[in-house]
């Protein structure tokens, strides 16, 4: 009976040290001196309670463990209908219904809701793109936001200096982001995964610093404003046509001007972009290249002995992922009308990574659901906003230990040997 009490005491002391300094003391600046102030009684009470809980938990750890089993999430498989022709038919009907719903819904929704939905769609696109890199190919990219920035600035700069329209800039943004991905990945992908993580982290910072300091080109911290919105075959969504020869949308159809036309149009555009992304990635995972990504993630040596070049396979995944960030960035710039380096900080990369991790690495449905959850939740609960990143960080740690396959694990066609008992 000696051992648990020691380990419990030890844990309690560790807890007390961890909490008491950073939680229990506030630093106040008065003039040039720094005054420490003890936090309120409530905080200290909370610290004491937390210590007590840790102590008791460690003391009765075995008893607690035998009493409560950590609830395991119900497997998503058991909720879905049986495998077979019936199921594929059901899934198809469900998917079709969801898509139709996505197109009809905005005409009845409020402007704020549509705006939020558009933002969510951007995150879905980013999540799906990063999912190729992290989920499928197993490469940790911590500077994903850099490619997003490349896409956004490509459109912003092209339209600022050369008057290029959104539709021309969209493919260029994707290509340029892919090129950046290629140039960065080419040297680094030959090395081990950890190096890739830290180099991409550094790359993300470099891009941000460059955007911030190259004031002549990018406007520095002030960013670029008045980026034109996309048009629909020459129809503009403004009160008056800004360019020669263009006709405003409402005049063309002879309906009164309404600002919500533009919002709905942007939303629908985002829906189409996301649908294309989903479709392309869905097909890619079933093509030899997609299979190679996953095979390489699972076993590097086996892949090599089967004649796959690991660097080339990784590079395709990295480049492909970067290009989707480029498309998303171009759309983001067009929707916002204003971009600055502030939009492309590391936190954004972390949010996108959290989406992929929560949804289930490799799983498209999971990533979409996680993106909706992680963008809509902070909007619904304002108090949550402040604790958002704290919880995201905590979630990443616990998801990895508890359910690394994510909330909706990826299902892939596979055969299992039946063993006779």
């Amino acid at each position, binding site marked *: 009976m000696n051992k648990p009490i020691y380990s419990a005491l030890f844990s309690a002391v*560790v807890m007390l*040290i*961890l909490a008491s*300094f*950073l*939680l229990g*003391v*506030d*630093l106040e*600046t008065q003039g*040039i*001196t*720094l*005054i*420490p102030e003890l936090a309120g009684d409530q905080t200290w009470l909370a610290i004491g309670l937390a210590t007590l809980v840790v102590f008791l938990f460690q003391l009765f750890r075995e008893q607690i463990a035998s009493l409560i089993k950590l609830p395991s999430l119900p497997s998503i498989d058991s909720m879905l209908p049986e495998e077979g022709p019936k199921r594929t038919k059901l899934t198809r009907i469900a998917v079709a219904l969801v898509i139709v719903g996505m197109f009809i819904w905005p005409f009845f929704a409020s402007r704020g809701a549509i705006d939020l939905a558009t933002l969510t769609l951007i995150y879905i696109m980013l999540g799906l793109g990063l999912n190729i890199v*992290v989920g499928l190919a*197993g490469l*940790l990219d*911590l500077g994903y936001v850099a490619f997003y920035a490349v896409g956004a600035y490509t459109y912003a700069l092209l339209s600022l200096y050369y008057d290029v329209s959104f539709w021309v800039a969209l493919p260029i943004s994707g290509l340029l982001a892919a090129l950046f991905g290629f140039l960065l990945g080419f*040297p*680094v992908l030959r*090395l081990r*995964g*950890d*190096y890739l*993580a*830290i*180099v991409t*982290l*550094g*790359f993300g*910072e*470099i891009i941000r*610093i*460059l955007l*911030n*300091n190259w004031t002549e080109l990018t406007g520095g911290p002030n960013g670029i404003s008045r980026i034109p919105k996309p048009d629909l075959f020459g129809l503009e969504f403004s009160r008056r046509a800004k360019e020669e020869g263009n006709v405003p949308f409402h005049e063309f159809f002879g309906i009164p001007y309404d600002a919500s036309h533009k919002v709905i149009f942007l939303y629908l555009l985002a829906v189409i972009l996301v649908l294309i992304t989903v479709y392309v990635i869905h097909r890619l995972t079933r093509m030899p290249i997609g299979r190679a990504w996953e095979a390489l993630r699972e076993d590097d*040596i086996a892949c090599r002995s089967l004649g796959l070049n690991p660097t080339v396979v990784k590079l395709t995944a990295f480049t492909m992922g970067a290009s989707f960030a480029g498309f998303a960035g171009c759309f983001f710039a067009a929707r916002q009308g204003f971009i600055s380096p502030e939009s492309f900080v*590391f936190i954004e990369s*972390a949010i996108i*990574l959290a989406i992929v*991790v929560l949804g289930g690495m490799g799983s498209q449905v999971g990533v979409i659901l996680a993106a909706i959850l992680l963008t809509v939740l902070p909007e619904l609960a304002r108090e949550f906003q*402040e*604790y958002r*990143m*704290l919880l*995201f*960080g*905590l*979630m*990443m*740690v616990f*998801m*990895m*230990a508890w359910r*690394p396959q994510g909330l909706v694990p990826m299902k892939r066609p596979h055969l299992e040997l039946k063993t006779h008992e």
Partner: protein
Amino acid sequence: MLRVTNPMQEQFLYFVQQLLNGLTIGSTYALIAIGYTMVYGIIGMINFAHGEVYMIGTYIAFIVIAGLTYMGLESMPMIFMAALLVSMVVAATYGFSIERVAYRPLRGRTRLLALISAIGMSIFLQNFVRLFQGSRDIAIPTLISGGWTFGDASTFEASLSYMQVIIWVVTLITMAALTLFITRSKWGRACRACAQDLGMTNLLGINTNNIIALTFVVGAALAAVAGLLLGLYYGVVNPYIGFIAGLKAFTAAVLGGIGSIPGAMLGGILLGITEAMTSAYFSSEYKDVVAFSLLVLVLLFRPWGLLGKPEVEKI
């Protein structure tokens, strides 16, 4: 004091001044880099949360200094030593807990999981401090002021502050103590054994779990030393300093050869000098860019660093 008027001499004096500044920053990078290199040497993992431990160390040091000054303690060495000790202990506790929560449950699993878990831990710690200590810069009154002015040119004075000397001395003592610990003590021998072959060390009856925890603890304590020194040198702290400092220290570790402790020391000092020269002769905005470019270049042409051994891939 040296009085110079000749432009050549003036240039030289300027160079010497930058060298001294670079040496100061570099020696603190080296302290942080050791934490990366020790953990990497044993479990082959980048401890992404290490930069945050450095940041926490700075906060704890500031809290202790402010507290003792507020209570009326006048003696500067006492305050300094107390801050050093307390921040080392608290940071070590953080290092220990990070290993327990974010790494140990994932040991032996896919590397990607542990990396994501570590990133999560880093984000968590940064926001934890931001929420409870505020995101603004916290400035501390100068604890150690003064210095020697050793050169006088027409446009500037070349000087060496006492703080810089203290940074060198403390870094030197810490490094010496660490080297003694690693080479002479029983625990240090166990650390080296773990770095060579973790499985075999375990078979020989050494509790490798404890040794891994020990490397996190030692690394965190050294990061706290750097936190105190740099905190006093710059005089400000905010919750975001850990991110860039962590990246820089990692660059230093890779530059010197990750896994090698003398390499981390050398890499830190080289990086510090490179940075000081970049800000002096090129542009201070781009000093981070130069540091990261250096990282990419080293990884490209010499991934085992200056003092490391090339990694042999075992199949």
